[in-house]
């Protein structure tokens, strides 16, 4: 059941990415190209998503608990450490090079472009590496 609900959510998210143009690297790179062929339309996509999520969170949290799963799993940290600066800095460079962030890259997988087929496995290796290193680091620092 969880699988099916999340399948629906993923589908909805992916359809949104495709319709908005977020899944097209050429459009994303034009959005990021402030000094050239700047296309600001994706700023409205992100802005719209933030507004909907802002309202949605408040409606959902007002329920007190989710439908299944017992409690909300929300990030609680608010400190700004080196990782939350270094990670996004690295991420932004990759995003600017390839025009893909993680969601759109997966959505584009089914379209089978060679660039996507190179990008996605590399991205997964990168994610896994970061996670393993991060867990190793927190183990040593917590001992």
């Amino acid at each position, binding site marked *: 059941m969880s699988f099916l*609900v999340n399948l629906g959510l993923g589908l909805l998210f992916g359809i949104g990415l495709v319709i908005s143009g977020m899944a097209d690297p050429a459009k994303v790179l034009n959005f990021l190209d402030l000094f050239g062929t700047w296309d600001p339309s994706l700023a409205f996509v992100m802005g719209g998503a933030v507004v909907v999520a802002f309202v949605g969170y408040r409606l959902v949290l007002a329920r007190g608990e989710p439908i299944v799963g017992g409690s909300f799993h929300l990030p609680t940290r608010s400190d700004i450490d080196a990782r939350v600066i270094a990670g996004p800095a690295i991420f932004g460079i990759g995003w600017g090079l390839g025009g893909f962030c993680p969601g759109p890259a997966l959505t584009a997988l089914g379209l089978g472009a060679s660039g996507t087929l190179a990008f996605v496995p590399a991205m997964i290796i990168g994610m896994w590496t970061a996670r393993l290193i991060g867990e190793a680091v927190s183990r040593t620092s917590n001992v």
Partner: protein
Amino acid sequence: MLWEGRIAGISGIVGRLLPPYGDGAFLSRLGFVVGLIAAPLVIAVATGEAVGQTVSSNVPLMIAAGLLVGFGSVWGNGCTSGHGVCGLSRLSPRSFAATGVFMATAFVTVFLVRHVIGG
């Protein structure tokens, strides 16, 4: 959120699809990813038109970009959806910092690639 109380950040969902597994949400994450991948196919079937996109065919560049995106998004605990959408809408200071940083480095990267190196 409404269903299981979880935040939908793509990098978090995908990054935890591989072992080691810390919680019982594997099937939820798998479902989300399958839906994400199926989206353009569903659109193609529904509209009868293929989904258009332009991806760089420079394979070494895309591998490098993929490694950076994957590593950076998990290292920084979030990507465009996690920090940029979920984090900003929760008014998280961490996410405001992260979103500012990745937008800045992405703008600079595109500027360098397109206007300094040329292409």
